[in-house]
């Protein structure tokens, strides 16, 4: 085995994988499957509505979160005045002050 392992390896090592499979694979997989299925204990069939409700629950939760977020966004008061206006005004004032300062200091 030539490859030196690295702590940041992200991919399975094919050599170790092959050795592990050879070591750990069980014989007769079909027989194992048959044994498991044959031995399954009785399980009370769940009501179809219960199953549907269980699977719908994550979707309903996501829809509720979206609705709450949308409601909060719509309820936030927003000013009708454009943001650019006060900024431009501020810029004009600063310019004039700077110009005055420069003129006064000029000999």
């Amino acid at each position, binding site marked *: 085995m030539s490859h030196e392992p*690295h702590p940041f390896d992200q991919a399975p090592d094919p050599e170790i994988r*092959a050795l*592990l499979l050879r*070591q*750990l694979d069980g014989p007769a997989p079909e027989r194992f499957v048959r044994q498991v299925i044959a031995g399954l204990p009785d*399980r009370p*069939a769940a009501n179809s509505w219960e199953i549907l409700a*269980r699977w719908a629950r*994550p979707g309903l939760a996501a829809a509720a979160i979206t609705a709450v977020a949308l409601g909060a966004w719509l309820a936030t008061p927003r000013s009708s005045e454009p943001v650019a206006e006060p900024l431009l005004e501020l810029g004009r004032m600063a310019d004039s002050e700077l110009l005055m300062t420069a003129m006064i200091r000029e000999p």
Partner: protein
Amino acid sequence: MHASRCHGGRGIQRRSPLLRTPHVTDAELVAVAQGGDRAAFGELVERYGPAARRVARAVLRHPEDADDAAQDGFFSAWRHLDSYDPRRPFGPWLLRIVVNAAQDLRRRRAVRETDPLSPALSAGSISPEAVAEREELRGRMGNALAELPERQRLAVVLFDAEGFSHAEIAELLEIPVGTVRSDVFHARRALRSRLGPNARGGS
């Protein structure tokens, strides 16, 4: 995950209409099995049986004990299918149950400690020397695995043999991702040092 993660529909031709559909997902099979459909659960056993047996063997060295534990794991999963969260992948949920079943079995009874793992090697065209060499490598691999702490053994099996990510293994074994990374690294290094430079996985 490699083959065991495949969602293919091998051997499903004689089953219910849904199962005849190719590429039925695990989640769809679980939904049908939750209604009591054994064939749907059987398809999941086919998909995850090999991985469950390997993971059980990473905990219990004796193959018969490991198969008992894997079987117990499937029975337990069948009984508790209602607690499965369909938003999460099925494989790690099932294998967590199998690991628990294997650890329970070890606690309940004095399981056999030896490792007679020896699936019949089809000698066929393989020379006696090659068979002997393979058996010798199997023996060394068995010993090397047995010497690893159980958590490292599970981590390297789940990462290298089953193809789970570090994050998935962390969730499955309920340990931090950094610990999984470290366990895989140390396990690989120990296996490589025990097996030597000439060991190869190929047949």
